[in-house]
């Protein structure tokens, strides 16, 4: 068939069953168009056909005959050839479409996976309506999902692009600045990876192609709890085009993997136990994905069903079947402070309430993908978007039975992680198949598989008992938590530890007692997810604070201010806070912003103008979150900085860029140390051969730990260069000045290229490696410093509840975050927006439903993350109480802003209509039921 593609006529044969997106990506190697779901839900595959935005994953290629197709690669007015695009950044910059430029300048690009789809959708809109209002933009982008959720920035970018297209006025970047910026640090910079992301040039794992590459698929159990009785792979093996079918019996080394405990079978063998529906039984490598899929259907399995353990409270009951040899209790976690009985005795009021939170899914838009291949030297290379490349390497090597040095993990761009890409997904399976076949193997999860397999957020049951004096002073808190860690441990113990230690809230609490039971069940495993257990605890505690405030007739802000952690406070784990506690200021600032918008009491219900049944009110919540691993775990990161022959400073660490902006942070830090423009610094991440171990990208630790490592490495190199040059040019080292790409000394000015040569001449290596160890911490139970830093936040949310239907809309959110120091304010803005929207999803839109171990929400159509339509107005206030050992005072921010949003919303719902939400997510039916007092008939 003939068609126009990006303005040029082409002739191409559509294949049977081929969608437009496959034709573009496979036949034409145009990988800028992304596949997030392959079920017409996410919008990431959006392209333009005859002027209209369509979903290329649900558009038969054959239908494009005679039509005019535009993809992200064809958007720029100077249609560049692929070579020009690769080689000439300057040309690319100049030829950007205004929408692409606006997305970059407005910081709308985070992980970047959804961005081609966003831009194409926006393009279709602006071509029809170059002056859209907010409503029109929301309407147009409704189903183009961004899990990094920089929706406000996306909206602003689309507006700015429209203006540029109409008037030709250049696009101006929004101005964000730290309160005390340094030369580089604290000013807003464009992320270095943004350019590639807006033109579709960024390579995510699925975008890679190798010659003779096979496609792999995994046979999943599909039953939650059973013993495998028979597994017959013969027919699958015989299918033409199938190169290998492997089962547990084929594993050369260690049979299990895991981040802390090796309890997760790589493949479940005959006679062994299936513990969750996503368990792998066999893996297939074939010439095509279709053949591999067909082979899965030929694999015959027989199970002996076992009783299913479906919730953590049931799992704790001694009569439940044991899922693991050691029983169902992964860990009993305890916090003890003071004398709880005494604390309750001192109270004038003691209240108790039980809360429930559901399972949640990360729903990063990029599904998991791994590619394995053997190098000619016989080493195994794994290409994967992973949050912990070195842990991947270790687990892969163990299962292969190889020394670690023979395995190289090459981190690719990650289309969103949020904690969901810390565990092994397909890395080991791909490696096993490559080892067997000798050929490169790609293992791409489809969305269905992604929903079933990777660890989720822990569902919890949290009972809180709180005591307070009449004046509002807290005297004691007792909490009991059950956490559902699902079928495998993953990071369950650590997540639930964080939930437990944060279950007294960021308050001065003389007496505290907490007991948490992290339990195995037959649900999909649970592990790290932005917030890391604190999300659940915060919901319970912050709801409790409002319940208490109401009974005591104290203002919700006042009761928090009265009890807030401050300098000199001791936490419930016995840590004395000596610095960097900005909670009071967060509370203060959010309160004044909220009150400036309101005449009366913001917590009193009002009706929406002209609609009596729409009730509005504000709700308030605070939170804190540790930075770093803590609890006595050694927390270190290594980074290397090198001056390259082209005069560019390269910084290297294995830490991962998951959209959060680490690349920018590292670039700014090195630029700051050398007083040079960030454009003179290059960042290389996530390669176990080339980059030193930065540790896991988790616990909001990378800015702090890898940031420090990069900073120290830069200082060491700085010093080495200064002393070398000082000696040679005979001047004191402190008179060697670095300035914008130059070194000045003794009246000379040397460009960095020359500095490189000088270093070489002197036989000094222009490179420094620094292994940074974060301040040591103490294990839980020992008192002392459980964490080296905490970030603090306060939020207020204004909601509107429809008393007729129970529907809840969030209108406004005011956020203040104490981040220590805003290193890159533009990036921070994106993290805050994304966090708030994720918190909103946690409260209102997301519900991962598992029944008797079976996943009901097994398609993206059934698991709904917030879209731009649900996004409220977000007002972000940055508070900077520096922490001494953080880089320039910075502490973690990645998780913080998502934590207090949920209770701020549910407290607002209570204030608006008097319905207390103690079960997440909010059920609108339950709201109407309580308001209208109708009963629920079981059918």
């Amino acid at each position, binding site marked *: 068939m003939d068609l126009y593609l990006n303005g040029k006529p082409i002739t191409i044969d559509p294949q049977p069953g081929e969608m437009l997106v496959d034709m573009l990506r496979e036949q034409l190697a145009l990988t800028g168009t992304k596949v997030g779901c392959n079920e017409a839900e996410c919008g990431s595959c959006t392209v333009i056909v005859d002027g209209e935005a369509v979903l290329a994953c649900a558009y038969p290629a054959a239908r494009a005959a005679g039509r005019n197709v535009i993809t992200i690669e064809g958007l720029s007015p100077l249609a560049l050839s692929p070579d020009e695009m690769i080689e000439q950044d300057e040309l690319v910059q100049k030829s950007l479409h205004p929408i692409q430029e606006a997305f970059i300048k407005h910081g709308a690009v985070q992980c970047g996976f959804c961005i081609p789809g966003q831009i194409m959708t926006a393009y279709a809109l602006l071509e029809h309506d170059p002056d859209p209002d907010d409503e029109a933009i929301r309407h147009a982008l409704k189903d183009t999902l961004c899990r990094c959720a920089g929706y406000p920035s996306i909206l602003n970018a689309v507006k700015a692009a429209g203006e540029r297209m109409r008037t030709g006025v250049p696009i101006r970047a929004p101005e964000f600045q730290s309160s005390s910026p340094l030369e580089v640090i604290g000013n807003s910079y464009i992320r270095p990876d943004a350019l590639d992301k807006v033109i579709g040039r960024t390579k995510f794992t699925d975008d890679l192609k190798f010659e003779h590459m096979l496609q792999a698929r995994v046979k999943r159990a599909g039953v939650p709890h059973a013993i495998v009785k028979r597994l017959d792979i013969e027919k699958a093996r015989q299918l033409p085009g199938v190169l290998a079918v492997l089962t547990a019996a084929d594993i050369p080394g260690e049979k299990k993997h895991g981040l802390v405990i090796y309890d997760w079978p790589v493949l479940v063998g005959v006679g062994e136990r299936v513990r969750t529906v996503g368990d792998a039984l066999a893996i297939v490598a074939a010439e095509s994905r279709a053949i591999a899929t067909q082979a899965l259907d030929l694999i015959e399995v027989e199970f002996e069903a076992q009783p299913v353990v479906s919730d953590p409270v049931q799992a704790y009951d001694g009569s439940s079947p044991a899922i693991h040899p050691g029983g169902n209790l992964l860990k009993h976690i305890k916090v003890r402070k003071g004398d709880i009985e005494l604390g309750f005795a001192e109270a004038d009021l003691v209240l108790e309430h039980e809360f429930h939170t559901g399972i949640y899914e990360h729903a990063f838009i990029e599904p998991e993908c791994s590619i394995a291949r053997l190098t000619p030297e016989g080493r195994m290379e794994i290409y994967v978007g992973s949050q912990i490349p070195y842990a991947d390497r270790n687990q892969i090597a163990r299962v292969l039975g190889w020394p670690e040095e023979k395995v190289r993990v090459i981190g690719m761009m990650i289309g969103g992680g949020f904690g969901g890409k810390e565990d092994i997904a397909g890395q080991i399976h791909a490696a096993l198949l490559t080892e067997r076949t000798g050929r490169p193997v790609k293992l791409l999860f489809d969305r269905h598989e992604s929903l079933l397999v990777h660890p989720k957020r822990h569902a919890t049951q949290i009972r809180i008992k709180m005591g307070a004096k009449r004046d509002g002073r807290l005297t004691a808190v007792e909490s009991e938590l059950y956490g559902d860690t699902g079928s495998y441990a993953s990071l369950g113990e650590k997540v639930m530890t964080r939930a437990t230690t944060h279950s007294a809230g960021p308050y001065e609490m003389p007496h505290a007692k907490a007991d948490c039971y992290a339990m195995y069940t037959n649900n999909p495993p649970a592990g790290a997810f932005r917030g890391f257990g604190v999300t659940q605890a915060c919901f319970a505690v912050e709801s409790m604070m409002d319940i208490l405030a109401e009974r005591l007739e104290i203002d919700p802000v006042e009761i928090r201010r009265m009890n807030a952690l401050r300098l000199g406070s001791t936490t419930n784990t016995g840590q004395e806070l000596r610095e960097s506690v900005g909670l009071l200021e967060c509370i203060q600032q959010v309160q004044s912003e909220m009150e400036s918008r309101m005449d009366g009491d913001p917590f009193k219900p009002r009706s929406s103008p002209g609609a009596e049944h729409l009730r509005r009110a504000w709700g308030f919540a605070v939170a804190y979150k540790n930075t770093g691993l803590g609890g006595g775990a050694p927390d270190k990161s290594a980074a290397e900085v090198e001056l390259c022959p082209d005069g560019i400073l390269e910084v290297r660490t294995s830490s991962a860029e998951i959209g959060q902006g680490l690349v920018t942070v590292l670039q700014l830090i090195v630029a700051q140390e050398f007083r040079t423009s960030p454009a003179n610094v290059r960042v290389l991440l996530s390669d176990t051969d080339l980059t030193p171990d930065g540790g896991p990208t988790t616990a909001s630790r990378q800015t702090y730990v890898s940031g420090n490592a990069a900073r120290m490495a830069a200082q060491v190199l700085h010093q080495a260069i200064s002393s070398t040059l000082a000696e040679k040019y005979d001047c004191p080292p402190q008179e060697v000045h670095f300035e914008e790409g130059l070194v000045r000394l003794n009246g000379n000015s040397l460009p960095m290229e020359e500095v490189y040569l000088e270093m070489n001449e002197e036989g000094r290596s222009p490179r420094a490696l620094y292994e940074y160890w974060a301040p040591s911490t103490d294990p839980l139970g020992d008192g002392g410093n459980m964490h080296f830093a905490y970030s603090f936040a306060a939020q207020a949310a204004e909601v509107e509840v429809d008393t007729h239907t129970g529907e809840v809309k969030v209108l406004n959110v005011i956020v203040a975050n104490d981040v220590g120091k805003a290193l890159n304010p533009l990036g921070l803005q994106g993290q805050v927006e994304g966090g708030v929207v994720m918190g909103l999803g946690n409260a209102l839109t997301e519900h991962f439903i598992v029944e008797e171990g079976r996943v009901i929400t097994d398609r993206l159509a059934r698991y709904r993350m917030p879209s731009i339509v*649900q996004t409220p107005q977000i007002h972000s206030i940055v508070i900077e109480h520096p922490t001494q050992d953080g880089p320039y005072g910075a502490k973690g921010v990645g998780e913080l802003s998502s934590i207090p949003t949920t209770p701020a919303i549910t407290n607002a719902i209570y204030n608006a209509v008097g319905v207390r939400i103690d079960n997440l997510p909010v059920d609108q039916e339950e709201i109407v039921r309580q308001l209208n007092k109708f009963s629920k008939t079981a059918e």
Partner: protein
Amino acid sequence: MPLWKNYYLAQSIPEALTRLNEGARVIAGGTDLLLEIQQGVQPPPESLVDVCNIPELNSLEIRGKDLFIGAGVPLNHIVASQLVQENSQALVEACNLIGGPQVRNTATLGGNIAHALPAADGTIALLALDAQAESVSSEGSRITALEELFLGPRHSRIEENQELLVGFYLPLRKNSQASAFKRVMRPQGVALPILNMAVWLQRKKDRIADAHLALGPSGPTPLRARMAENVLRGEKISQTLIEKVHQVMLEEVHLRTSPYRASADYRTHLAKILLQDVLEIAWERAGKD
């Protein structure tokens, strides 16, 4: 196995019918069909015949006393059409809520009807608008009242492999007539409405002279609440009337509990809310001429 082997872009009705008789399946926007094949709800067909290029299926025009909307007109064209906006507000409102813009750019009204789901938004609106469906097979063409078209969930009188929906005839709106559509969704879970409702009414002074009412899901097929319509005729809008209509409606439709979506009681409650809303909106609109 590929999702299909042959893909035919039919240019005319006879061509499409030939393909159908050879065993091909009709595809319009594909936003229902392709997902069902991909997700294994339907087996992969040998051949698909794409009907979106057939001029007759793409026309949207006035024919005599009716507005004709081709079965292959994409929903976004329906939403943007002046003709439809003027004559069939309920349909505009319903179509504008289906999917997002990308889905609406390919999805069609024909697909929405032929899929025969009890709460498809376009279907519910068309029912209240008293539409007739034109279909064609090798035996010739026929006109069926929309209500008669449905046999059960995913099951209609349109004979698979034989018959093609060509389009829909909607009576043109006269003075003092108007329609409205509303639905309630649940933010979590399946993208199907908890309840949707469309009304068409004719005003005479301060009374409702005539009314059509449809809601879904209210049974195995999309349906009109005929008894409730009777109660509306000749009455003034009042709280008492709404209570009464609601009661009568509950007797003739079956509002059920769907797991993870809504209980029957919630639906019963919403039925009254929607009833009041759509009646008031349509009433207001009808008073504007």
